[in-house]
């Protein structure tokens, strides 16, 4: 019986994504910040940050972005760039302590500075539809954008 080398495949996809991104000068962002999980406000960010505090974002050359985080969730959307400030709108899978469901997201961010590494701050809000109603996870995060 043959086994699929999942780990090797993931590493390969990750490496290719990084190379492609770098070649096209599209940013990969690593952001840290506490998420709003639907139980009131947020807790302070963990030191070191927990998995729930981390988000990875990737923006393609034609300004489509992919965001991966435990909370507010997994999203694909279009970024509108204003050379520093930006807005994003799209959809995906919203995740909070009260459930998981599909829905839209919007984000407002800023890439400060110039060069390969820039300081990034972003507020992202999402709405997810679940069988019990809507969930409204969000996160205010800061980090680094690698161009």
């Amino acid at each position, binding site marked *: 019986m043959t086994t699929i080398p999942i780990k090797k495949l993931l590493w390969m996809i990750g490496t290719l994504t990084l190379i492609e991104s770098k070649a096209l000068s599209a940013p990969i962002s690593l952001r840290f*910040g506490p998420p*709003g999980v*639907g139980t009131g*406000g947020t807790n302070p*960010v963990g030191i070191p940050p927990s998995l729930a505090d981390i988000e990875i974002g990737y923006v393609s050359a034609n300004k489509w972005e992919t965001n991966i985080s435990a909370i507010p969730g997994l999203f694909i959307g279009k970024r*509108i760039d204003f050379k520093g400030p930006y807005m994003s709108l799209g959809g995906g899978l919203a995740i909070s302590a009260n459930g998981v469901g599909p829905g839209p997201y919007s984000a*407002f961010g800023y890439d400060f500075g110039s060069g390969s590494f820039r300081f990034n701050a972003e*507020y992202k809000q999402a709405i997810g539809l679940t069988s019990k109603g809507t*969930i409204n996870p*969000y996160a205010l995060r800061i980090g680094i954008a690698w161009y």
Partner: protein
Amino acid sequence: MNRIQKKSIWRYSLLSLSIFVSIAKASYGFEIGSGVSAVEDGDDRVRPAAVIHASTASGITNRFLFYGRDFGPVKERNYVLSISKRWDVGSKTWQGLVGGAVMADQTEITFPNSPADNTSYTSTNFGMNFGLHWLAYETKVVQLKATWDGYIFPAGTGFIFLANARKSALGLMLQTQF
């Protein structure tokens, strides 16, 4: 609502309006509207709210969100005022807003049999407003907009570690321009 609370509401309202009117005077157009919102306070519970909206042609936008509820002797009132800059996002039907916001959350407890124990308190905070508005329908006179606003408020010194509170308002609004 006691006199102190009334004063604070009027103070914020007047401050916001005076800033808005002074900017609007320098502008060449005006837009006013009102509507309903579903507000979420960070706990995934949605509450009905009313919203008043005014904006200049140059995109300076002033919004006042009001909601509350009564539980027997407990009365809650929540007010959020924001002044934001608005701009077109990709097309004229989509608009983004970023600006400042001030919030007043008021709680009043009344004891009918023991008025001396009546109590009230107001929690005030300053934060930021991030909004996304969509022009869903328009005639020559009115426009219908779907709005999605987020209000972020720092949680005191905990904001050093990004601790915050958030209000989200999803709404429908009718407006007119002149």
